C-alpha cells in the first residue's frame, strides 16, 4: 500500500508487544493511522480508521490474506511493528489511494486479528502436519464449498480463520483438484493437459505462486523459502489462492503424490522458472514505483501544504518595504495627510493647518511629515506670558495626533511610527 512514512508514534518488536492489546487500544481510542509490520524484507500495512481496520496489505497480498501473512510475521520475534498516527482526512485519502486493499465494512477483521495473534504460536507449526496428512487423503467432498467461498470477495475473513483452524487448513489442496472458473494463465494449463508430466507441473504452480509471494527477497532466498515451506502452510495457502482451472483429476492426484514424494533435487530443477517469475514480479514492482505520481497527490500523501500566493505576499511584506507598491505611495500619502489634517483641525485652538507627507518606500517604509499650523492669537499679556508654553503643548498634541494617524494607517505594523520624522511649525 502507498503510505506516508513519517515519524512513528510507537515502535516495537513483535516479541515485546501484545499485538491484540495494541489493536484493542487503537479501537478503544478510535485512533486513525496505520501499522507497518516489517519482517526481514517483507513489509505489511494495516490501515485503521476510527480504531477499525479498513485496509491491509502484506507484500502482494491484500485484505484478509495480508492479515494472515502479518499474523505469521508476528510469530517472528524480529518483526518490527511501527504505529503511525495520521488525520482522519488522510485516512480517507489513503483509502482512496489503496482501494484494492480495502477491507469490507461488514468483515470481522478486528476480531480476527485478535484471534490470530492469540493463536499465532500454534499456527506456525501445526499446519505442517495438517498439510502432509491432508495431501495423503484426497478427499474432495468439501472442496466445492471452499472453492465457492474462495471466489467470493467477502469471504476473506473466513479464509483467515481457516488458516488458524487446523481442520480447515486441509481444504486448500482440494482447490487444486476442482477449479471451476479461475483465470489461470492459459499456457500453464495447456502444459498440464498436454504433457503427462503433470505432477511436476502441479508442483511448479505451487512454487511459482509461492515465489511470487516473496516479492522483495532475492531469488535464492525465494527458492530456499519455497522449498522449505512448500509442504507446509504457505505452499498450501498458495495452492488455495491460485485456484487453477481445468486441472484433470488424474494429473492433480499424481501431482499430489509428487508433492509428497518428489525429492528436493527435482524441485530445484524448476528454479529457472521461479527465478523468471521472481524477477518479473520485482520488475513489475519497480515499474509500479516508477510511475509518475501527480504532485497534488504527493503533497496530500506526505501532508505537505502547498504554499499559497497570499502566504508569500504576507511574508514579503516584512521585507524590502514590500507593504506598499510605488504606485500606491501617493495614495497613502494623501490618506495620511487628510487624516492628520482633520485630526489637527479638531484641536480647539487651531485656526488652520497644512500637512505634507513624504513616504520613502526604499528598503523599509519610512517618511517625513511636515505640519504647518496656525493657532488663535491671544491677548498681548497672555502672549508674552504663556505663548511659549501653549506652543509646546500644541506641538506635543499635534505630534501625538500624527502618530495616532500613522498607527491607524499601518495597524499591523505599529513600529513603523518610529520611522517617521514629524515636524511641526507654527505660523
Amino acid at each position: 500500500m502507498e503510505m506516508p512514512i513519517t515519524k512513528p508514534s510507537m515502535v516495537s518488536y513483535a516479541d515485546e508487544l501484545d499485538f491484540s492489546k495494541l489493536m484493542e487500544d487503537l479501537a478503544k481510542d478510535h485512533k486513525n493511522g496505520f501499522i507497518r509490520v516489517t519482517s526481514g524484507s517483507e513489509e505489511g500495512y494495516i490501515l485503521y480508521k476510527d480504531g477499525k481496520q479498513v485496509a491491509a496489505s502484506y507484500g502482494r497480498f491484500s485484505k484478509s490474506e495480508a492479515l494472515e501473512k502479518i499474523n505469521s510475521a508476528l510469530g517472528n520475534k524480529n518483526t518490527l511493528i511501527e504505529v503511525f498516527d495520521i488525520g482522519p482526512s488522510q485516512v480517507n485519502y489513503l483509502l482512496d489511494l489503496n482501494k484494492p486493499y480495502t477491507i469490507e465494512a461488514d468483515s470481522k477483521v478486528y476480531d480476527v486479528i485478535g484471534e490470530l495473534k492469540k493463536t499465532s504460536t500454534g499456527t506456525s507449526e501445526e499446519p505442517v502436519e495438517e498439510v502432509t496428512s491432508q495431501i495423503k487423503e484426497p478427499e474432495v467432498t468439501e472442496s466445492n464449498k471452499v472453492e465457492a467461498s474462495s471466489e467470493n470477495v467477502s469471504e476473506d475473513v473466513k479464509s483467515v480463520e481457516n488458516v488458524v483452524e487446523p481442520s480447515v487448513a486441509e481444504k486448500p489442496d482440494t482447490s487444486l483438484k476442482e477449479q471451476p472458473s479461475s483465470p489461470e494463465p492459459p499456457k500453464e494449463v495447456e502444459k498440464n493437459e498436454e504433457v503427462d508430466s503433470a505432477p511436476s507441473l502441479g508442483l511448479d504452480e505451487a512454487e511459482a505462486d509461492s515465489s511470487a509471494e516473496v516479492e522483495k527477497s532475492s531469488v535464492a532466498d525465494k527458492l530456499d523459502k519455497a522449498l522449505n515451506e512448500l509442504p507446509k502452510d504457505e505452499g498450501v495457502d498458495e495452492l488455495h489462492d491460485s485456484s487453477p482451472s481445468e486441472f484433470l483429476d488424474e494429473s492433480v492426484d499424481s501431482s499430489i503424490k509428487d508433492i509428497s514424494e518428489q525429492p528436493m533435487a527435482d524441485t530445484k530443477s524448476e528454479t529457472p522458472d521461479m527465478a523468471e517469475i521472481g524477477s518479473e514480479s520485482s520488475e513489475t514492482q519497480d515499474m509500479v514505483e516508477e510511475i509518475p505520481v501527480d504532485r497534488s497527490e504527493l503533497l496530500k500523501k506526505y501532508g505537505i501544504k502547498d504554499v499559497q500566493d497570499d502566504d508569500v505576499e504576507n511574508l514579503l511584506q516584512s521585507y524590502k518595504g514590500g507593504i506598499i507598491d510605488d504606485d500606491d505611495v501617493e495614495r497613502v500619502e494623501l490618506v495620511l495627510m487628510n487624516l492628520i489634517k482633520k485630526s489637527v483641525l479638531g484641536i480647539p485652538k487651531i485656526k488652520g493647518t497644512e500637512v505634507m507627507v513624504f513616504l520613502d518606500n526604499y528598503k523599509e517604509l519610512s517618511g517625513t511629515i511636515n505640519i504647518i499650523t496656525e493657532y488663535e492669537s491671544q491677548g498681548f499679556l497672555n502672549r508674552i506670558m504663556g505663548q511659549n508654553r501653549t506652543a509646546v503643548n500644541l506641538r506635543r498634541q499635534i505630534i501625538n495626533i500624527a502618530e495616532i494617524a500613522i498607527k491607524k494607517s499601518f495597524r499591523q505594523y505599529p513600529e513603523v511610527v518610529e520611522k517617521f520624522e514629524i515636524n511641526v511649525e507654527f505660523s
Partner: protein
Amino acid sequence: MTRVITVASGKGGVGKTTITANLGVALATYGEQVIVLDADVAMANLELILGMEGKSVTLHDVLSGDADIEDAIYEGPGGVKVVPAGISLEGLRKIKMDRLESALEILIESADILLIDAPAGLEKDALAAIAAAQEMILVTTPEVPSISDALKTKIVANRLGVDILGVVINREQHDKTFLTISEIETILEVPVIAVIPEDNEVSRAAAFGEPLVVKNPKSPTSNAIMQLGADLIGEEYQPIEPDKKGVISKLVEGLLGRR
C-alpha cells in the same frame, strides 16, 4: 560576470553550510575565484567547518558599520576566500542587513563566483541572503519537514526573481521511509542536481575543521560535491575511486612509513 549563488534550505540542520563550504572549495580547485560568504549571522558555522574561527573582522562588524567588507575577507582552504559571519552574539544587536547589499557589491568585484550561505528559515536575514543572489541552490534532506520548508523557500525565491539551479538532496539513504528523488522533484518542481549520501566522514571532517573535499577527497560525499561544482561551471569531473587496498596492506604501508 560574477555569479552570485545562494545556498538555502528553509529548514535548519540539513547540511547547507557543509555543502556551501565544500562546494566553495571544490569550485576553487577548478580555478575559479570564489568567495564564500556566511550570511547566517545568527548561527554562524561556516568558519568552524573551514577551520577559520576567531577572525578579528567578520561580517558582523561589516553589518554593524564598524568595518569595511574588504577587511573581512580571508584566504581559506584550497584557495577559496571566506567572509566569516563571526560568532559574537553581542554584535547581533547592531546588525543591519541593509548593509549586506553594499557589501556584496564590493565582493562581486573581486570574484568569479560568490557563494552565500543563507540562514535557515524565512526571516528577514534569510530573505536578504536569497534576494541578494541571482541564482539559488536548494538543499534538502529526503524527509517531509525538510521538503516542506524547501518548498516555501523555493516559492519565495521565485517571487524574488531568483533563478533556482536545482535541488541538492543531502544525507540520502537507501531507505523506503524517505521520499524518492522523483517524488522530491515532483513536489518541488525543481530538478535534483546532486544527491549526497549519508556519510560519517562529514562530521569527522567538521570536527577536524577541514573541508571534506580536502580531508577525504575519495569519499562519496566529496565526489558528489566535486561533481556538483563541475556541473555548475561546465567542467568535467572524474570521480576518485576509494582506496581498495586491504587492511593488512594498509597496515604494512603504515608500518613502513609510506602513508
